[in-house]
């Protein structure tokens, strides 16, 4: 009996001595070791049997925990370790092959693929894949729309995504963004017709008013576009300013931006406004970066 108690106590002491370095060793393993070998998606499908969703969730959770752990470590470290984004992306892509509905995988992958890795196309391809399955989810087209507009400057595509997001969420903001990007991509007429349809179908007075203001601004911008084109055609020259179009009689009455801004022509002939088609967006023409509120 005494021997057994002694043996148990000895084992407990040894366990106490071992457990700290053992935990330290496991905690500090490199990424590849920590994540373990992850077989191909085909192999995982076979091994996962009827637990594909569980395996997908565990892959996402592994990546999240790795990333979270590294972030905490980097905060306290002089030499921060760059996360293995390629591997993280590969695992999350594998997770959505197992469970194409897993929102955590899309949400997390698109966030680091755009802001950290600058793989905008890869991020949007992943979101496109998700949209095929999560057909009810406005977030995926919303993210893709933002990536297209903000990172890729692909305004027609952004408008398309925001339109889809708006249709799914019913949110006025998404519809407005869609209309805005249609306008910025030079598809002013399309934007006008799109917003007109939205305005007609809207029952909420405040939202309807919002559509009407945006619509009126786009119509004014389109009027300038037509005047500019007529000026080019008749005078075989580029108009320098909007005021020049008004003075020459091509634009009567003078255009008014309902958002309180001033319309102007950019050096490459695009129509823009200091308001950026938003209240409170007015700023000096010279400071305008021309980023996203011009059109052909």
């Amino acid at each position, binding site marked *: 009996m005494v021997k057994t108690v002694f043996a148990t106590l000895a084992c407990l002491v040894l366990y106490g001595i071992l457990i700290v370095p053992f935990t330290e060793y496991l905690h500090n393993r490199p990424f590849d070791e920590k994540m373990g070998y992850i077989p191909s998606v085909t192999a995982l*499908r*076979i091994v996962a*049997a*009827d*637990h*594909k*969703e*569980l395996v997908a*969730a565990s892959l996402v*959770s592994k990546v*999240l925990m790795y990333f979270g752990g590294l972030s905490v470590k980097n905060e306290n470290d002089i030499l921060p370790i760059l996360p293995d984004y390629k591997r993280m992306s590969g695992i999350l892509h594998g997770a959505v092959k197992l*469970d194409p*509905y*897993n*929102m*955590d995988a899309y*949400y*997390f992958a698109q966030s680091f693929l755009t802001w950290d890795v600058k793989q905008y196309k890869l991020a949007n391809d992943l979101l496109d894949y998700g949209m095929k399955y*999560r057909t*009810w*989810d406005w*977030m995926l087209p919303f993210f893709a729309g933002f990536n297209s507009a903000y990172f890729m400057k692909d305004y027609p595509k952004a408008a398309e995504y925001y339109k889809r997001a708006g249709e799914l969420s019913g949110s006025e903001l998404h519809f407005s963004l869609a209309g805005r990007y249609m306008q910025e991509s030079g598809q002013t007429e399309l934007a006008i017709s799109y917003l007109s349809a939205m305005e007609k179908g809207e029952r909420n007075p405040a939202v309807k008013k919002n559509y009407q203001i945006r619509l009126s601004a786009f119509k004014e911008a389109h009027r300038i576009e037509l005047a500019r084109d007529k000026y080019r055609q008749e005078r075989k020259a580029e108009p320098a300013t909007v005021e020049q179009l008004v003075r020459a009689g091509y634009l009567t009455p003078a255009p008014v931006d309902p958002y309180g801004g001033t319309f102007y022509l950019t050096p490459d002939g695009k129509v823009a406004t200091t308001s950026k088609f938003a209240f409170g967006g007015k700023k000096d023409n010279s400071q305008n970066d021309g980023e996203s509120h011009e059109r052909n």
Partner: protein
Amino acid sequence: MKTIVAITLKGIFRDKVFQGIMVTALMFLFIPIFASLSMRQVTELTITLSLSLISFILLLLSVFLGGTSLWKDIERRYTFSVLGLPLSRRSYLLGRFGGTALFVIIAASVLGIAAFCVVAYSSSIYPSDRPIVWGSMILCILFDALKYILLIAFAFLLSTVSTSFFLPVFGTIAMFVTGGVTQQVYEYIHSPASKTLSPFLKQTATALYYIIPNFGAFDLKLYAIYGLPLPANGLLMTSAYFVVYVGLLLSVSSSIFTRREMR
């Protein structure tokens, strides 16, 4: 036969299998904590974990109860005393199967209630964007139970030809894994990607596809987790498949067991 069903059920409860399940079911308590780590789909992850836990427990029950039930009776020579009564071997086998299958349904129901409580709790704290379709969850658990009853029928078939529990237990596990991938293999060999495979291999794989039980059809987790509309036609066909396949397995098992020499 009803008596054998009742005896089987009592025997399983007497062996404290139910208590074992309840201990394993304590893991349900940790599910909301783990699911709360999800960024965007806490409720969906709660449902995933709950359904997977139920499926895992039912798998263990099917393998061990299905694989050892008959073997234990023969090994302990219970069969001699039971079959001495005015009872056909077929009734005895079907009674044993019925009792085990009934226990799987009872276990699935109790675990299902635990899962509903966990999901309701999780979704009250982190409301989901998707509606929770409780009906789909019930059907998912029901079809999971049917799948494992089919597996039990297969374990019984192996038990009728085996003299040890190794073949029924390991054979059932192998059948579970194989039955889960047959559909993928079938789709692969009928896709352009398989053009390099020999025609003989393709024909063999196709033949095996028709023989081996297809468990893929019973998996409704995706529908239950994300509240997707269930394919009514598919469910009806799967139910019919279950009835026919289990009927076939039990007929063959009865036929072998009736002719089996007992020593």
